[in-house]
């Protein structure tokens, strides 16, 4: 079974990358199951908010394919600026994070569980951007 990475890369059954990825089947299964849990699970964050944050993280990582995947499902909300600012902090300068950044999220109406979901989402898209970049290099050379 393929995952979002296979879909975005156009990895076809029997190809070189398919054979390499087949050596770690749990990576495919858990990457796809993470997609479902993060973007379709019940959460205080709306789905359109989650996709907007994911698109932003993909753009910060300059991954056009990943950003394009999330763009049609992304939407606006009053607290989107706060969510995107947190995504920028975690993605670009995680060493600058402080408890104050979490207090800002709580003040914007996020429950502790929503803070966990937001953090996991941002971390997950950062994972995907690096896996995609590495696979593109392995495909090309």
């Amino acid at each position: 079974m393929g995952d979002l990475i296979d879909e975005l890369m156009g990895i076809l059954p029997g190809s070189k990358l398919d054979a390499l990825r087949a050596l770690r089947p749990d990576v495919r299964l858990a990457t796809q199951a993470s997609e479902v849990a993060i973007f379709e699970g019940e959460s205080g964050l709306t789905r359109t908010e989650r996709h907007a944050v994911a698109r932003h993280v993909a753009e910060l990582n300059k991954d056009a394919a990943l950003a394009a995947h999330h763009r049609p499902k992304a939407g606006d909300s009053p607290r989107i600026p706060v969510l995107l600012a947190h995504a920028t902090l975690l993605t670009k300068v995680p060493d600058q994070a402080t408890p104050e950044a979490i207090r800002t999220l709580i003040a914007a109406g996020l429950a502790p569980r929503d803070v966990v979901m937001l953090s996991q989402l941002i971390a997950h898209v950062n994972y995907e951007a690096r896996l995609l970049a590495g696979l593109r290099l392995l495909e090309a050379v």
Partner: protein
Amino acid sequence: MASTHDFGFTIDTLEWKAWAPILDLEKASPDQIKVLEESHPKAKTSPYYLLLVQEAEVLRQRSRLFNTIMYGPRGAPRADRELAATAESRVNGCPYCASVHAQRFVQMKGDKDIMQHLLDEGVDTPMPSRQRAIVDYAVKLGATPSAATAEDISKLRAEGLNDAEILDITLSIAMFANANRLMQTLGEAVRP
């Protein structure tokens, strides 16, 4: 501005303190208990896992991913996966992640002196060419994915790594782009 780099880097065991409310184990659902048990042997007493398990299914899948990438059989030597993880943690400034994975690197027969220099002096410290190739790739792919190039892959191949092993190193770097960001932004390292 303060940075998590300021804490310093050590191979000694550190603790971790959460910045957000964690789950009271007494109130955990049977499914949350199961996810904790699947995640890590000490998860039920770890503030990190008790924080993350508030989104149980997300943690279940993330732990499955982490465990297969770092501990899965065959493929890249585990010391190489740990080296990549520690180098990235050093650059991103995650002292907790760096200490845990520096210890694992040594347990997996990695050279302790190389690791100590990497922690003390940073990723540019001199090291043998095989480790150099892994660390350079980890630093570039970890910082900005597009910064890694075909030349980095060529250097890894020249050191005898096959593509399955390079994919394993890539997965370790990708996983620590994830792990560093959770550890650094949901709490902080503390000395026991």
